[in-house]
């Protein structure tokens, strides 16, 4: 009898361990496998869309080796073009350093590190926008509006950047950043307020705010904020409002990236080291419990949506002040939507967000090269990102694919229906 009971207890403990899982499995292994599986799916699509590979598969039974080799070649060509275009060629980078150390000539070096710095440039808005969505998730709020907040932030920064002249940079640049953050914050605060005051679901309202932002920008870019000329774009911002670049053109790597890292640290500090951050996480984990322990759920909703909007706005600011210097139609280009994938991949932790943003920056940075070298349309990246979201959100699929028996954690439900 007792033995049986002991056995049962042991089993129970095992189950409990299984249930809670280890943080390593949850936070590193699962995301890594999700990304890997996403890339595998992308690879399959590359094979299907490759004429040579398809031709070889037709003769699979007579020459199976050729089919496999052709497929392998197609995938390798595509992904080496992707990652080569994003990270640069290590050999040329080493050669560049050698020339620099022996002759002091930087041309070769700068050329060799261009792809990598460009990926970092692309990762910059991703870090901000990912932090925005992650902050929302931590409070149990789903901010689908990062796209619109990004756009408004960019327009706000651009407006301050080009309309005010004659300021020294140490006033103009912070002001322009602040303008972007404020525009994004307003765009986030409205759904936050509506949720807190009327219980209107933030998912619907942030979607609506996105479309309002797009239509508003249509008007602004063809009317009040239009630069002279035919194209619906804003004038370029003043040099004093630009985020300074580290290297001469065409390298666009700028202070936006360190600034993004700083904000990632600030968000980490805010969430995990301050009372307010604790409250936010408590509300996210269990709003009822938080309410009965005396926290104001309503106030936290408004606060988090405002901060989240400000961060997404800063993503737009970084893009306009650091990289493009002007805003045109379709400026947001999916950054806000991708950032949802990114926040999920980074498990809503600032460090995870930074890593995921680097990955997305690399994917986006290499995609152009992949298109020109391997003739694979850029949109493959979106497919991979979509798959990654599904695999992250449905870890059971990953477990089933790789026969994993660990890390069976309780899944958190992020959204609670429209009206609640």
């Amino acid at each position, binding site marked *: 009898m007792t033995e049986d009971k002991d056995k049962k207890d042991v089993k129970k403990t095992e189950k409990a361990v299984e249930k809670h899982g280890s943080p390593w499995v949850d936070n590193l292994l699962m995301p890594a496998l999700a990304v890997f599986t996403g890339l595998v799916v992308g690879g399959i*699509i590359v094979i299907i*869309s490759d004429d040579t590979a398809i031709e070889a598969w037709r003769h699979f039974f007579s020459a199976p080796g050729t089919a496999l080799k052709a497929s392998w070649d197609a995938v390798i060509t595509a992904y080496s073009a992707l990652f080569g275009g994003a990270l640069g060629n290590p050999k040329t980078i080493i050669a560049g350093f050698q020339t620099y150390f022996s002759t002091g000539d930087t041309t070769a070096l700068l050329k060799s590190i261009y792809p990598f710095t460009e990926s970092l440039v692309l990762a910059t808005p991703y870090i901000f926008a990912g932090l925005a969505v992650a902050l929302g998730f931590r409070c149990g709020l*789903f901010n*689908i509006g990062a796209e619109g907040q990004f756009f408004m932030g960019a327009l706000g920064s651009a407006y301050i950047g080009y309309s005010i002249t004659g300021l020294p940079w140490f006033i103009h640049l912070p002001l322009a950043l602040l303008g972007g953050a404020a525009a994004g914050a307003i765009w986030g605060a409205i759904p936050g307020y*509506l949720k807190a*005051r*009327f*219980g*209107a*679901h933030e*998912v*619907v*309202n942030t*979607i*609506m*705010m996105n*479309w*309002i932002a*797009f*239509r*508003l920008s*249509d*008007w602004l870019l063809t*009317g009040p904020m239009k630069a002279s000329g035919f194209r619906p774009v804003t004038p370029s911002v003043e040099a004093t409002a630009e985020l300074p670049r580290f290297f001469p053109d065409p390298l666009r790597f700028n202070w936006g990236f360190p600034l993004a890292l700083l904000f990632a640290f600030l968000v980490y500090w805010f969430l995990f080291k301050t009372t307010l951050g604790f409250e936010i996480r408590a509300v996210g984990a269990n709003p009822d419990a938080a309410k009965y322990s005396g926290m104001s759920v309503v106030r936290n909703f408004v606060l988090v949506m405002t901060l989240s909007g400000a961060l997404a706005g800063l993503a737009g600011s970084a893009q306009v002040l650091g990289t493009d210097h002007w805003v045109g139609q379709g400026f947001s280009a999916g950054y806000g*939507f*991708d950032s*949802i*994938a990114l926040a*999920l991949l980074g498990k809503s932790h600032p460090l995870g967000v930074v890593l995921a943003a680097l990955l997305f920056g690399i994917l986006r940075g290499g995609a152009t090269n992949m298109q020109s070298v391997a003739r*694979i*349309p*850029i*949109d*493959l*990246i*979106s*497919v991979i*990102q*979509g*798959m990654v*979201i*599904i695999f992250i*959100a*449905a870890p*059971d*699929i990953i477990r089933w694919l790789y026969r994993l028996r660990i890390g069976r954690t309780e*899944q958190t*439900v*992020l*959204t*609670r*229906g*429209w*009206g609640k």
Partner: protein
Amino acid sequence: MSKSTPRPIPPIQNRQRITIGISLLVVGLFMLLVFTRGTQPGQTATFGMNITATSKALTIPDLVLPVQPALYTFIVITVFLGAWQLARGVKSIGWLVGIVAFCFIAAFLIWATKEKSFNLVGMLSSTLGRATPIALAALCGVISERAAVTNIGIEGIMLIAAQTSVVSATITHNLYLGVIVALLTGGLVAGIHALLVIRFKVDQIISGTAINILGAGMTSFISSRYLEAHIDQLNNSGTFKIISIPVLSNIPILGPIFFENSPIVYIMLIIVAVMYVVLFYTPWGLRTRAVGEHPKAADTLGINVFLVRYINVIIGGMIAGLGGAYFTIGSVGRFDQNMTAGKGFIGLAAMIFGKWNPIGAFLSSLLFGFADSLQVKMQILSVPIPSSFLAMAPYIVTMIVLTGIVGRAIPPAADGQPYEKQ
């Protein structure tokens, strides 16, 4: 409680009464200040009542309205209703807001067309066309969410179905086959959504977002990899001919609006009616609503909650797929990247505005379609209001509705929550 004693009005209703009353008066004041400015006695606005010369409808004379009297009529109605609401309160807020909205739009149109001519029936006819994909998206939302599965992936479903339908129709030279393929793809993609959220318990919003990203990515990928190089072989299907219903299409005004349309529009109208009957007057509808409101109770009564959800989501996907087909084989005959342009999201808004009711969803789709076609027409009339602001109207209206100040929109109780069988 005896019948004769009047119940005291609760303070919350009191506040709502005053808020709405004052808002209506503000609307009236706005109309008085903006729309009557610069009008002179004797000015007229001409509204075209015939769609085109080719239409089968009997020709009737155009409507010529004297600007000032017409404007003042609508303003007086608005102000009167506002004052009445402020003083006494009206039982049916929906009707009140509806009438005032009508007055406002009518006054706006008269103001915009003063000294000009404007084809009213033409616009109303294009309203139904523009409302069709919105309505189909909204109906997809209604049937899924009545079974408590939110689907924000409608946009992605419509994009994918738009592409598959045009490609299959081009290859087979058969538009009806294109529609069937669109239904199947829509059902398939929605089935994946259902599988993810029901079997794998993925957060419903995240699954929908993934479908949207995947849909945009896949269709753009296929478009730039295959369709652009082989337009004639793959992406040029032609469109459905307009079908005129005999006799009915001869009716002036109503004929060209309702009875001279693409078959998809008729199918949409049929779906609205069928879904209404099914949801509210059949056992299946009762089961669906039970699953959406209280899945545990439904389960106890022997209803297979998961099965009901799967079927409803898949049927919803097929309806959205039809909406996708409308973009390609229903209107332009080819696929363009991201051509749905947010109609799936407007459909969601229409669903909420229509309070999760098929007929309500259809009527709000008409309203949004109206705003959409009005916006295009306003550019032609060169009204001093940027058309972008009109395009924003549906989104703003949805946000106001969600606040619950004007008509509370209450979703099915279990909407968005996964069901755990115990």
